[in-house]
């Protein structure tokens, strides 16, 4: 089972490089085979208009964060797609710096939920539960920050 002990530092380095490369390739494969299907699901959701629909449903929540209803769109874009897409749709909104920070907190905690959820699922966790956790805890963190910013 055990490999013979490496005699020189060079041999040890070569062995570690090989093991690292193998671990990297295995991990790459593990990630690829869950991330690519999950990415496909996000595209289909976007294609069938789920993002616009969810954003409309989330509009009333935005007042809890001191944000206009339109801010629901970057939030949902972040949930389904990723941070960069969310930032892209934030730029059209002309939010104040403080509002940007509050919205950023919700998106930083909850984003790319399908792809990252697939990875968590691979590690033995429940992707749905963790997706829900990130949405709820992200909104709560943002709402609390909004409240605290009002105090100071």
């Amino acid at each position, binding site marked *: 089972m055990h490999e013979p002990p490496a005699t020189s530092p060079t041999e040890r380095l070569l062995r570690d490089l090989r093991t690292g490369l193998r671990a990297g390739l295995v991990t790459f494969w*593990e990630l690829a085979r869950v991330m690519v299907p999950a990415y496909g699901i996000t595209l289909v959701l976007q294609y069938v208009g789920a993002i616009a629909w969810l954003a409309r449903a989330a509009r009333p929540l935005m007042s809890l964060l001191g944000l206009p209803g339109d801010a629901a769109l970057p939030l949902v874009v972040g949930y389904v797609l990723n941070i960069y897409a969310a930032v892209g749709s934030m730029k059209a909104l002309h939010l104040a710096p403080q509002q940007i920070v509050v919205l950023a907190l919700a998106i*930083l905690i909850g984003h790319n939920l399908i792809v990252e959820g697939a990875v968590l699922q691979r590690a033995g966790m429940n992707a749905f539960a963790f997706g829900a*956790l990130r949405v709820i805890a992200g909104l709560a*963190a943002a709402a609390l920050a909004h409240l605290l910013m009002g105090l100071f």
Partner: protein
Amino acid sequence: MGQLLHTFLTGSFSLLLRVFLIVIPIMVVLEVFEGTPAFRRVVRAWAVVVRHVGLNERSAAPTLVGFLFGLAYGGGVIVRDIRRHDLPRRQVFIMSVFLSMVHAVVEDSLVFLALIPFSLMALFWIVVYRIAWAALVTLALTALAGFLVRRARR
């Protein structure tokens, strides 16, 4: 529909390329330096920090990778370590909750900080407050999960 397939293929390619270019160096660097005193010192220092949310020294390395580079990469190291030595489910749960709340702390934070004029307050909310929130949620959910597990066993 053809447009969708095209987006899927090009998007998957750039996703895979990005994951490949990040995962391979992380794994090689981990493997080469994992045994060195300097690396152990960094991991042990990090372990002292994450001990407060219930993580042990073995969970410190995957947590550090996820904290710095992102949830998917931390998850990758978690999957590797589950395969190598049996990581207790409780530790995987704690890591997953903590990393769900805070990960890729450098890159993701900069993406948002770049949108506004720099201020220490913004940095505080985006980085410090988020880490504190992550610790709080992790402790609360670990306590809740522990309670539910104990009740189910009774």
